[in-house]
């Protein structure tokens, strides 16, 4: 009798503990199912895709469900209609000074090629001052620290690094005007014509983060916004 009462007490405690968690679990489960369905539709193809986890504050590049790069967000600003999550495709990548490929003509390489090294380097180490060589190449350091990504669902994402502020007082004024006056007004009036504005600004800690995103994100890349 005592044993049965103990078991009943445990079951009751378990039930009481389980009930408050159930509604939260259900919402979490529904969200998980949706995001996994979205991701599986992308991961089953061999193409790279991205996951922008706005609440988790990170942007990830993935393939086959595997995270290749993860960039944590330092801060985020948003104006407009909130319904921009789901599967998206990058239709346009733009920046003020886009990096340009170097074009060489026959015979140019013979003049610029540096001499080979004398001895091999130890495993996993960067060569001594590899940056000292001025190369005819398009490298990560040549990528912009501020740029825009336009998606097929009408979402515009401005990406920048924490240090990539606008140039000068006028630049800062222009940016403040755009974010605090122009966008709120455009948001107000675009609601009336039924289009709806969605503008997201993502700031990353280091210059390299923003530059790497520019490097890895190409027009046509698909992704999920959670």
């Amino acid at each position, binding site marked *: 009798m005592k044993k049965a009462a103990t078991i009943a007490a445990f079951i009751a405690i378990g039930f009481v503990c389980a009930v408050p968690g159930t*509604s939260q679990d*259900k*919402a979490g*489960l*529904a*969200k*998980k*199912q*949706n995001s*996994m*369905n979205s*991701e*599986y539709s992308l*991961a*089953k193809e061999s193409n*790279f895709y991205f996951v922008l986890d706005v609440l988790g504050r990170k942007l990830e*590049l993935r*393939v*086959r*469900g*595997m995270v*290749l*790069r993860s960039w944590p967000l330092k801060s985020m600003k*948003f104006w*407009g209609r*909130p319904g921009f*999550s789901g599967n998206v495709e990058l239709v346009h990548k733009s920046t003020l000074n886009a990096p340009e*490929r*170097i*074009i*060489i*003509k*026959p*015979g140019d*390489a013979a003049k610029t090629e*540096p001499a*080979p*090294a004398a001895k*091999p*380097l130890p*495993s*996993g180490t960067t*060569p*001594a001052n*590899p940056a000292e*060589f001025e*190369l*005819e*190449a*398009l*490298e*990560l350091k040549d990528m912009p620290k501020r740029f825009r990504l336009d998606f097929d669902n009408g979402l515009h994402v401005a990406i920048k690094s924490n240090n990539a502020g606008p140039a000068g007082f006028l630049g800062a004024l222009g940016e403040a005007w755009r974010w605090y*006056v122009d966008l*709120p*007004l455009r*948001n*107000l009036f675009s609601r009336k014509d039924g289009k709806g504005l969605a503008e997201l600004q993502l700031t990353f800690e280091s210059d390299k983060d923003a*530059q*790497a995103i520019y490097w*890895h994100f190409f027009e046509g890349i698909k992704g999920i916004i959670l």
Partner: protein
Amino acid sequence: MPAKRILIAVAALLYLGFLAVLGGAYLVGLKQVSAWPPGETGPGIADKDLSRVQRNVLQLERKMSGLLPKGLYIVIDTAENRLYLKNGADVVRTAVVSCGSGVVLEESSGKQRKWVFDTPRGEFNVKSKIANPYWVKPDWAFIEEGEAVPRDLEDRIESGTLGDYALGFGEGYFIHGTLYTRLLGRNVTHGCVRVGDEDLKAIFKAVPLGAKIYIY
């Protein structure tokens, strides 16, 4: 004087009107933000569907893990010039490499061809493993040097340039050794991935034919 007062009054009214509209815009913005994130307000799961959804999630998790490459595989970051030899989620070895320079070579005479020296991005497989490889120089290698393209195959063969080993992943692209070790970590190649001798030997010995290569 009255005209000036009227002008000031009109300007003040316009300014107040502008502030009112801007205030309205901020109210709308705040309302939109409060409705965010939209996923949280979506339809929930009915009690009767709960077990079905749980099964579905488990099935999706299994399907997702089934997509991951089996055994050893290679991941190459072309921006950072890093090669990772991985097994599941574990990084077995990291190597500093050199990837494509992104330079464009334009032939100014003859066929006026154009080559873009990018390392291809995507999912590939190790298609060949060659010890002591020799390089069959393609047309661009001669054109870039300002030399005439030879007609005989023998004149295109060069030994020692690709190091001790090469792993082919299709379309003439290889992961191979280099004489230019001080340029490892920089984007300097014509599309192939150059690796230092020690790393190359370890990767060559570890990775089987058919192993996946992810280049991003």
